[in-house]
C-alpha cells in the first residue's frame, strides 16, 4: 500500500529584476549599511568643519582682552552652536558612521539587522541637523549646549532658538535610539560562524556598549527636553521654582544623559584604538578580555557619575561624596585600558603609519585628560575648577585629543577599505604633527587660563594676570590645529582619485572587513570564513602560508 506522494518539481519563477538606482536617488533611497555609513561620515565631517569654524571664531574673539569683534549675543550663539554641533552632530554620529560601515563587515554580516531602520536613523540625524542649523536664519539658541533653565525658559529666551535645539535633541535622539537597537540586534545575531562573544572584535564591543548606553541614557534627555518644551509653550512649570518646579531637575535629567554621552563619544574611539594598535605593532592586543571588561565597567560606572557636573549646586554632602567616589573609580578601568594599550605596543615591531601615529597621539593626550579628570572628580577641588577654562581644557583633551584623534586614526585606517585607495602617508603625517602641536598649544595653556580665574563662556575678559598671553597662545594653537585638520580633509578628497590602489588588505590587518574587496561589494562577502580567534585574518593568512608550503599533493 505504497502511497504515492507527489514529489515537488522544482520550478523556476521569474521575478522582475529591479534596475539599480542611479546617482543621488540611489543614495537617498539606499538601505545598504556601507552607503549609509558613508553618508553618516560625510555629513558628520561636514558638521565637524562647521563646528570647527565656530570654534575658530570663538578663539578669535578671545585672542585679545576686551575684544569687540563679536557682540555678546553672537558669542553666546556661537558657543551653543559649537558645543551642540560637536556633541550631537559630530562625535556621537561619526561613531555611528564607522559602526554602520564596519560592524557588519567585522562580524561577517551581509548588512545591518534592520536596513530600513538604519536609513531612518541617518535621515533623523540629517533632519535634526537641518532643523538646528535652520535657526541660523532667525535666532540661534544662546544658552550653551547644556541649555540650563531658567535661562532656557520662555521668560529669558523667548525666541525659537531654544526650540530648534529641543527638536535637534529629539530628532537626533530618535535616530540614535533606532540606530542603537539596530547595532545591538546586529551584533547579537548576525555574527559569523565561530565568532563567539570572546572573539568579537573590540571595536564591535565598544559599539555594543555605545548602543546600550544610548538606549539607557537617551530617554532621560528626551523627557527633559519635552518638559522644557511644554514649559515653554504649554504652560507647565516643571522647571519654574516660583510654581513648585525645580531648575535642579533639569540639571539631573540633562547630566543623567550628558555624562554617559561622554562615554558614548569616547568608547568607540577606544575601540578604534584597540583595532589599530595591534595591527601596526604586529602583535595581538594585550589583555583582550581586560579591555572588553573595562569597556563594560566604564559604561556601568559612567551611568552613576552624572552629578559630578553639579558639585557646585546646592546638593547635600552625601550626594557630592557618592559622585566623587564613583567618578574616581572610573579611573581604574580607564587606567587598565591605557596600560593594556602600552602593553600591546611593548615588544612589538611598530610600523609608524599615520593611523598608528594618531593612535599614539590619542594615548598621550587622553592620558592627560584622564589625570585632569581625577583632579576634577575631587569635589572640593572642583569647587575651584568648575566652569573655568580648566574644565574646557579637560574635556577637549578627552573629546578632541581623545575621541577625535581616534576618529582620525580610524579614518586613515579604514579609508582604503571604504574607497579602495590609500590616503597619502606623507600628507597624513604632516597633518598629524600639525594637529598634535596645534592641539597642545591650544588646550594645554587653557588649564592655566582656568587656574588664573577665567570662567567658561565669557566673550571678553580683562587684561589681568597672564590671561592676555595665555589666550593669545591658545588662539594661535587653534589655527594651527585648524590647518592640520584641513590637511587631512584635503588628503581625503585628493586620495579619492589620486591615492594608490589599496587592494583588499593593505595593512595586513586582523579583522574580517579586510577579507573582502576594497570597497566591498554590495553583499559584502560571497562566503564567510569560520572564525577561530579574535584575529581571523591572521589565521587565514597563516593557513594560506601553510598550504603554499605543503608539498604538491599531485606530485607527491
Amino acid at each position, binding site marked *: 500500500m505504497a502511497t504515492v506522494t507527489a514529489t515537488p518539481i522544482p520550478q523556476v519563477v521569474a521575478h522582475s529584476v529591479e534596475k539599480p538606482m542611479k546617482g543621488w536617488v540611489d543614495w537617498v533611497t539606499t538601505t545598504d549599511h556601507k552607503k549609509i555609513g558613508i553618508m553618516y561620515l560625510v555629513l558628520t565631517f561636514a558638521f565637524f568643519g562647521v563646528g570647527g569654524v565656530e570654534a575658530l571664531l570663538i578663539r578669535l574673539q578671545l585672542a585679545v582682552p576686551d575684544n569687540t569683534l563679536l557682540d555678546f549675543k553672537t558669542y553666546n550663539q556661537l558657543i551653543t552652536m559649537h558645543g551642540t554641533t560637536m556633541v550631537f552632530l559630530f562625535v556621537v554620529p561619526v561613531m555611528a558612521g564607522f559602526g554602520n560601515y564596519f560592524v557588519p563587515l567585522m562580524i561577517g554580516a551581509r548588512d545591518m539587522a534592520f536596513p530600513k531602520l538604519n536609513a531612518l536613523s541617518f535621515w533623523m540625524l540629517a533632519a535634526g541637523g537641518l532643523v538646528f542649523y535652520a535657526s541660523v536664519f532667525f535666532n540661534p539658541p544662546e544658552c550653551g549646549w547644556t541649555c540650563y533653565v531658567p535661562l532656557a525658559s520662555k521668560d529669558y529666551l523667548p525666541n525659537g532658538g531654544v526650540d530648534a535645539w529641543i527638536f535637534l535633541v529629539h530628532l537626533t535622539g530618535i535616530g540614535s535610539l533606532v540606530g542603537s537597537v539596530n547595532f545591538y540586534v546586529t551584533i547579537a545575531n548576525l555574527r559569523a560562524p565561530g565568532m563567539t562573544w570572546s572573539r568579537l572584535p573590540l571595536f564591535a564591543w565598544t559599539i555594543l556598549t555605545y548602543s546600550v548606553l544610548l538606549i539607557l541614557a537617551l530617554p532621560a534627555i528626551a523627557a527633559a527636553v519635552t518638559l522644557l518644551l511644554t514649559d515653554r509653550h504649554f504652560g507647565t512649570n516643571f522647571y519654574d*521654582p516660583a510654581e513648585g518646579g525645580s531648575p535642579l531637575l533639569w540639571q539631573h535629567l540633562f547630566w543623567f544623559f550628558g555624562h554617559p554621552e561622554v562615554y558614548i563619544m569616547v568608547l568607540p574611539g577606544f575601540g578604534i584604538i584597540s583595532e589599530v594598535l595591534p595591527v601596526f605593532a604586529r602583535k595581538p592586543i594585550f589583555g583582550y578580555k581586560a579591555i572588553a571588561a573595562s569597556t563594560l565597567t566604564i559604561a556601568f560606572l559612567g551611568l552613576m557619575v552624572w552629578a559630578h557636573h553639579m558639585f557646585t*549646586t546646592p546638593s547635600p554632602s552625601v550626594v557630592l561624596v557618592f559622585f566623587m567616589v564613583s567618578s574616581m573609580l572610573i579611573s581604574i578601568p580607564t587606567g587598565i585600558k591605557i596600560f593594556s594599550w602600552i602593553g600591546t605596543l611593548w615588544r612589538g*615591531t611598530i610600523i609608524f603609519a599615520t593611523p598608528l601615529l594618531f593612535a599614539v597621539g590619542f594615548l598621550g593626550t587622553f592620558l592627560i585628560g584622564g589625570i585632569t579628570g581625577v583632579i576634577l572628580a575631587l569635589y572640593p577641588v572642583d569647587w575651584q575648577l568648575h566652569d573655568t577654562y580648566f574644565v574646557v581644557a579637560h574635556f577637549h583633551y578627552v573629546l578632541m585629543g581623545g575621541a577625535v584623534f581616534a576618529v582620525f586614526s580610524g579614518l586613515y585606517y579604514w579609508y582604503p577599505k571604504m574607497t579602495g585607495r590609500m590616503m597619502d602617508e606623507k600628507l597624513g603625517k604632516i597633518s598629524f604633527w600639525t594637529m598634535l602641536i596645534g592641539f597642545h598649544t591650544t588646550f594645554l595653556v587653557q588649564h*592655566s587660563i582656568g587656574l588664573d580665574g577665567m570662567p567658561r563662556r565669557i566673550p571678553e575678559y580683562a587684561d589681568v594676570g597672564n590671561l592676555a598671553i595665555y589666550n593669545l597662545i591658545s588662539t594661535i594653537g587653534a589655527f594651527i590645529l585648524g590647518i592640520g585638520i584641513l590637511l587631512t580633509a584635503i588628503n581625503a578628497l585628493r586620495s579619492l582619485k589620486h591615492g594608490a590602489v589599496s587592494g583588499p588588505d593593505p595593512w595586513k590587518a586582523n579583522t574580517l572587513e579586510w577579507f573582502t574587496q576594497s570597497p566591498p561589494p554590495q553583499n559584502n562577502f560571497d562566503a564567510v570564513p569560520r572564525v577561530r580567534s579574535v584575529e581571523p585574518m591572521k589565521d587565514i593568512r597563516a593557513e594560506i602560508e601553510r598550504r603554499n608550503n605543503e608539498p604538491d599533493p599531485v606530485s607527491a
Partner: protein
Amino acid sequence: MFDAKPPFQRASGPTTRGWFLPVQSVTRIRQALRRSNRIPHLTRASWRTLTSAIALAIGLTLVTAGPASASFWAPQHGGSPNADRIHTLYAVVFGVGVVIFIAVFGALVYAIVKFRARPGAVAEQLHGNTRLEIGWTAGAAGIVLVLGIVTFLMLPGIRNPDNSDADGWAIPAGYQTAKDKELLPKDGKSLNIDVNGQQYAWRFTYPDADQDRQNNVQAYEEMVVPTGTTVTLDIRSSDVGHAWWIPKLGGKADALPGYTNHTWFKIPRGKEGTYVGQCAELCGRNHANMTARVRAVTPDEFTQWLAGQKQSLAQAGVAAQQFRDQQAKNDAAAAAAQAAENETTTPEASTSSTDAESAAGAAQR
C-alpha cells in the same frame, strides 16, 4: 669644558647606581622583573631616565609652587583658609598626577622608541599577562584609594567654616540668622551675609539684630567684610542661575532660584584689600560683566562702615518719607485747587478730583 658631568650621569658608577632610590630595592625590583621573562625588563639606562624624570617633575613642582606663579599650575589662594586647603589638596593630587603621567608617558615613549619595526625584529606574540594585569589594576585602585583618603581627611577643613579669630569683628548676639547649625563654625558665630544673584549683579544683605528685613544694610557689587572674621554666605538667585566665585576666597557656589546655597571664607588680619571674581555660570548676554568684589577691612573700619551704612539708610528713609509726605501734600493741594476750579466750571469733572485724591492717598501709603 664638558668634563663636569651632569648629576644624573653619576648614576653610571657601580657604587652610586640607583642614587635616587635605595640601591638594593632597585636591584631587587629589576631582578624580579628579569626573572619573569614574559615581563619585559627595563634596562639600567631606562631606570635612570625614569627616576631622574620623576625627580625632575617633583623638583619642577616644588619650584613652580612659589606664590608668584601659583595660578600657572594650581588654583588661586591666599585669601581664606578654605582656598589655601583646596590649593594644598590640589597640589597633592597634581603631584601624584605628574608622577603618574611621567611613568605612563615614559613607558609609552620608551615603547615606541625601543620597539619600532627594524629589519629582523620579530614581534612577540603575547596575548596578556594575568599577573601584570592584576598588578596594575591593584596599583590604580591603590592610588585612587590614597587620593580618596587624603580628600576625606582634608574635606572637613574645606567644607566646614573655621571659627573667627580672637581679634576679629565681635559679632553681636542678635545678628545670627536662624539656619542649619552644620553650616556655621563650631562656636556658632559667623557674619552671615545674604548674597542674591540677578542679571547682572550681586546684592548683599547684611544681618542686623531685629526681625525686620526691610531695614537691613544692603550693598551692590562690593561686599565689605571684616578681616579675621568668618563670613558665611547664603547664596540665592532671583532670576536665572549664577555662580558666586572669588578665586582667592575659595570655591564656587551656584546661585539657583528656589534654592539656598552656602559657602564661607575668612580673610586673615593683615590681608585687607580687594578680592575680585566674577559670575561663573552662563547667565545671559552680559554674563562676562557680572563681576563680584569683596573688600576686606579691619574690624574697626567695618564697625564704622556698618554704622555709616545704617545711618545713611536711616537718613535716606527719613528723607524719602519727607519727600513722600511733601509730595502727597502737594498732590492734595493741587487736587483741592483743581476740585475748587472744577466746581465752578462743570459738574462731571468732579470724578477726576476723587481720582486725584485717591492717587494722593496711594502715594501716602
